């Protein structure tokens, strides 16, 4: 109920429930109040137009159309609601059959329901209208039964989910009768979605009913509902259009009332619609450029990537979170730089930001962000530069290829887009690149679809895709995480081979310290959106100075690990980017942390951002004791 009232306060809900309230009010009270006005014959004003006396004019017997539309609300709504009830009740009983009566009766029934659902509602209505004959009663039955298959399928799906749960199995095992299981156990658990769908369905039923009456198969004179009034008014549309249009408008409004109310509740129960971040951030991607230092004229030709004070921000529920908070680094020609850190440390966002692949609403600012000496934030289009010189390898090769296109075509299009290659040249290059990444039978493979490739092959093909141009930098975001160990090795070897043959720089993002130590020259350790240590890969195991780096290294088991001892882990939780503490972000988890660490944030100086770099760590037992105290 609480959620229903919350639904009623959304804009959609206000409109929907408002219309519904008006409609229901009219359905109850209009006939009581305006019965006389709606029935009176004004023989001086037959088929009159709109006037002060008759707002919507009169019909061919001189009856006031405005009041007739209002009074017709009751019959229209009553008939629609009755038909909806029939549809829901018959539907639920049909849908419950497989759950309650077993599959021998239930499955053919559901098969029949599936066949019936495939027919448009109106066709079923006509079918039943033939059986039940012309008239309001027949029409209610017709519309109701025609709607039953839809609710049968809905009820079946919902109940099948509930019936699998333990309490239903327990009830059945203890011999509770099927009817009782339905009423006591199944219905309460599916009531909410059923009511929502019935509300939306009532809108549709109302329209069907109006259609049936409009065809002359529903309500018969002297009774009248909106559909009947439209039929009566259509003939005189030249003389008196309001006679047909006014009831038409009523049908639309009442239909929307049910529809929107149901939708509003459905949304409140289901997906939260996030409108909070509307006003928070306007895209100000390049705002920080004004404050940036002027680009150096003497660009170092060896510099592939130059990043200074890179920040990434996202609007988040009325606030702004900053997962990357000022990252500065450079990558030289042929150099391999690893970025390690736990999930949420901002390493992947850093990689996507330097590749210019973050999109609205992400907001990327940097004092300098340059690829091969070209500032990416200078306001011009860098598609060509990035398309030929920066290659990306993503984490999950299973989802990184487009399932709708052949692998070869997905490689070839890059050459067509950036190198002006003909279709044939591009295809030949694609086949050549596939063979360069050791894919056997590349001619045949190029013509296959991604789902015909294994994970490791796809990841190599992905690298081959990056090699279509003449890349100077490969950004590999967790390229081996989704692969099993033997395939990991192939992919890492592949990256190393590409790097040495073409003198390509590599940024390798990973949470796996051992992978990075093996492949890279230099390692950057990220924590809570900052680089906390930047050191040669060879020093990782022996000369790391930041307590976090040392904890990461210690967490990697090696050949000398004690197999009986529990694997080392890092105490505590990573920082939530929405609540970065003052001071050093790692302080809460750090055995060396003191007052200064908790208040003052250390900056990256001579490769480490720590107030106690290289100090010896207390023995693990001491930390365990502290943990207990805490």
């Amino acid at each position, binding site marked *: 109920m609480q959620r229903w009232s919350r639904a009623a306060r959304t804009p959609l809900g206000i409109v929907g429930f408002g219309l519904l309230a008006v409609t229901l009010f009219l359905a109850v009270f209009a006939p009581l109040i305006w019965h006389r006005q709606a029935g009176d014959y004004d023989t001086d004003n037959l088929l009159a137009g709109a006037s002060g006396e008759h707002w919507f004019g009169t019909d061919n017997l001189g009856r006031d159309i405005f009041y007739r539309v209002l009074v017709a609300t009751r019959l229209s709504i009553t008939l629609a609601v009755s038909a909806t009830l029939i549809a829901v009740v018959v539907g639920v009983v049909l849908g419950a059959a497989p759950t309650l009566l077993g599959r021998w009766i239930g499955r053919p029934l559901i098969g029949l329901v599936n066949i019936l659902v*495939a027919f448009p509602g109106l066709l079923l209505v006509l079918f039943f209208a033939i059986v039940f004959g012309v008239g309001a009663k027949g029409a209610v039955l017709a519309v109701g039964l025609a709607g039953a298959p839809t609710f049968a399928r809905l009820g079946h799906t919902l109940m099948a989910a509930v019936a699998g749960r333990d309490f239903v199995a327990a009830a059945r095992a203890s011999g509770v009768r099927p009817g009782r299981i339905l009423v006591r156990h199944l219905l309460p658990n599916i009531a909410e979605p059923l009511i929502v769908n019935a509300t939306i369905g009532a809108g549709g039923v109302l329209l069907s009913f109006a259609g049936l009456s409009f*065809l002359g198969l529903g309500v018969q004179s002297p009774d009248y509902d909106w559909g009947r009034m*439209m039929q009566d008014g259509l003939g005189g*549309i030249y003389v008196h259009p309001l006679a*047909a249009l006014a009831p038409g408008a009523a049908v*639309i409004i009442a239909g929307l009332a049910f529809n929107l109310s149901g939708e509003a509740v459905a949304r409140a129960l289901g997906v939260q619609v996030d409108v909070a971040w*509307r006003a928070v951030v306007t895209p100000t991607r390049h705002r920080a450029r004004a404050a940036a230092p002027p680009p150096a004229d003497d660009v170092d030709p060896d510099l592939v990537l130059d990043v200074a004070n890179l920040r990434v921000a996202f609007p988040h529920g009325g606030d702004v979170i900053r997962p990357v908070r000022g990252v500065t680094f450079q990558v030289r020609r042929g150099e391999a730089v690893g970025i390690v850190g736990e999930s949420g440390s901002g390493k992947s966002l850093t990689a996507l930001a330097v590749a210019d*692949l973050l999109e609205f*609403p992400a907001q990327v600012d940097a004092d300098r962000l340059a690829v091969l000496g070209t500032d990416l934030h200078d306001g011009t289009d860098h598609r060509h530069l990035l398309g030929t010189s920066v290659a990306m390898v993503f984490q999950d090769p299973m989802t990184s290829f487009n399932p709708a296109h052949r692998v070869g075509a997905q490689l070839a299009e890059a050459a067509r887009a950036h190198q002006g290659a003909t279709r044939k040249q591009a295809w030949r290059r694609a086949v050549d690149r596939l063979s360069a990444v050791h894919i056997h039978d590349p001619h045949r493979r190029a013509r296959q679809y991604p*789902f015909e490739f294994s994970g490791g092959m796809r990841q190599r093909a992905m690298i081959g895709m990056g090699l279509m141009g003449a890349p100077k930098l490969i950004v590999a975001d967790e390229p081996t995480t989704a692969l099993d160990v033997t395939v990991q090795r192939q992919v890492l070897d592949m990256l190393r081979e590409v790097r040495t043959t073409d003198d390509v720089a590599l940024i390798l993002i990973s949470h796996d310290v051992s992978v990075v130590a093996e492949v890279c020259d230099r390692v950057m350790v990220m924590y809570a959106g900052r680089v906390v240590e930047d050191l040669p890969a060879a020093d990782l195991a022996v000369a790391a100075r930041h307590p976090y780096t040392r904890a990461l290294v210690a967490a990697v088991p090696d050949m000398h690990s004690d197999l009986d001892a529990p694997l080392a882990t890092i105490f505590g939780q990573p920082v939530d980017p929405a609540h970065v503490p003052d001071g050093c972000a790692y302080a809460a988890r750090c055995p060396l942390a003191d007052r200064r660490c908790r208040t003052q944030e250390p900056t990256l100086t001579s490769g480490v951002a720590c107030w106690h770099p290289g100090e010896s760590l207390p023995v693990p037992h001491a930390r365990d004791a502290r943990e207990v105290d805490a």
Partner: protein
Amino acid sequence: MSATPVAVSERGRATDWWRNRWVRFAARRTLRLLVSLWVLVTAAFFMVHLVPGDPIRAALGPLAPADLVSAQRHALGLDDPLLVQYGHFLRGLLTGQLGDSIGSQLPVSQIIGQRLPATAELALLAFAVAVVVAIPLGVGVAVLTRHGRARRTELAFVSSTVILGAVPDFVLGVVFVFVFAVNLHWLPVAGRDGASSFVLPVLALAVGPAAILSRIVRVEMLSVLDTDYLRTARAKRLSGPRINLVHALPNAVTATLTVSGLLLGSLVAGTVLVENVFAWPGLGSTIVQSIINKDYPLVQAIVLVYGVGVLLINTVVDVVLAVLAPRSTIGVD
């Protein structure tokens, strides 16, 4: 003994053949179509028998002489046992003998032959218009409103498509007649006479489906635009149109097609109402008249025609889906 190896290899070949997923799909889909057709035909047959009282008496009216009623009943074979009647009915269907209309005494198949083309034209044209409008609109709005961009455009699109999708086609037809025919005199009020007479009925039928379909296209596009493979396409720095049309659209089409199949089915039924608004000489106006006049042979035949049309559309959609997205529809072994 010598025959054994042959038999084994024969069986081997048969299972190979059966293992082909396309063969299995075709068999499954054909079976489904046949069962659906049988349900439809049987329902149409029993429809007349479910009518309370004597359908012939009801059709001819209370004043008809008793011997006329019994003669008519005999002519329609309603005196025979039910199973015999069912057999006659099935045989009639296979040979195209659908009986004569009680009202006009014309062969039912002749009436349908005259009326069906007008209805089919209307439904197919409306469907084409809906698809041609909905796909570019849905794609365009999806690209514009991604990740909460262009909030106002999104609000305008969503609210107008919700409202247009909820307006029943016959009400829209009446409004169109009032605005474009009665007031502006741009187009004819009713009838089927020349290209201009098609505009209003086709539009009245197409607007609602176009609104619904464009919303589906937008939602599908939005989810496809956030996939990893679209990020790959962006990482290749392809042009915007290429990313959206070549990489995203084909993957958004599966659900779109499923829904458009359903819409085409409901369009066929929707013609009944719209034909009555525009006095269109199709099946829709005929079925309503024959329901009111209780002309059961004619009603039975028209119900069958509509039903078969819908079943064929559903089957075609399934086959097209299987060809376009083989993995999702027929499954990979």
